């Protein structure tokens, strides 16, 4: 996505650490390592935002609608 700024927002309180998003991301943008949320889950965070190509696979696979993607 040349020039277009892609922003991934992961809702730490909704994330249950299932790691589906991490697995399907083609650019290794995401990984575990966030703070432990209210439910004791160490949530996923955006490790390499600049690598993101905005394909949306992470959000498609998230069972908890914790990932929001915006661009522009």
């Amino acid at each position, binding site marked *: 996505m040349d020039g277009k700024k892609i922003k991934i927002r992961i809702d730490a309180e909704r994330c249950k650490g*299932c790691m*589906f998003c991490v697995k399907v991301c083609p650019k290794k943008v995401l990984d575990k390592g966030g703070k432990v949320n209210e439910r004791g889950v160490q949530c996923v965070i955006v490790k390499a935002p600049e690598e993101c190509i905005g394909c949306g696979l992470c959000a498609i696979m998230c069972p908890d609608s914790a990932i929001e*993607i915006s661009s522009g």
Partner: protein
Amino acid sequence: MKKMFEKPRSMTCARTHYCSGCGHGLIHRIICEVIDELDIAGRVVAVAPVGCAVLAYDYWDFDTTEAAHGRTPAVATGIKRVLPDNVVFTYQGDGDLAAIGTAEIIHAANRGENISVIFVNNGVYGMTGGQMAPTTLLGQTTATSQFTRRADKEGFPIKILEMMKVLPGAVYLERTSVHSPKEVAKTKSAIMKSFNTQLGKKGFSMVEIISPCPTYWGMTPLESMERIEKEVIKVYPLGSVKDTLPQMSSSRTRGSIKPRNTICDRSPRSRG
């Protein structure tokens, strides 16, 4: 900043009670995406089952009732006959549909009720603690098949979809999965086609979705997705089991997406 992906409008902001990696949350969202794209949330009356998804009405922002265990297709029949122009779908697990509700699902299909059925096949009874279900695979250990499921003792994993193929009333039957983005996309188009079948008043349609239950498969979420790929779909092959309506498209055919409001700007409602 333009939103490219967010929670569907017809899904509430409530955080689900489902376990980490459970397929229900995913399937709930897919259904809501289809309902948003068809712009029919105001016409939907859903029937939730008894099982993990009994609390679905906390996550769906459309009218929902709850059936006695297994009687979901009968309740949906009553609703649809009274409200033929509403969109009525049942959401059922393998215990609800393929065990106690076997008679109801077969006769609803045989009557050709113009409803859509979403059948989540995760191979166990989740809500009650991981017991064996009619769809438990041979060799699978569960709370009530502790020596694994054996054909001569516990019988075979039942293939409801293939059984229903012979019913003329069932016009569209497809089995999909959610274990990869490609499969999630296929699940969405199958559900879209099932809803379009109903909107086109063509008769009974059902989508069986292979779904992970990490907790009671005794695996991590990622391992359970792998198990689907390596084991489950060998017994429950994916794809169309019956499609008498090729013209019924599986892409959005009518309605348009209304401009989206921001995520969760509505306060999550508590449901008593």
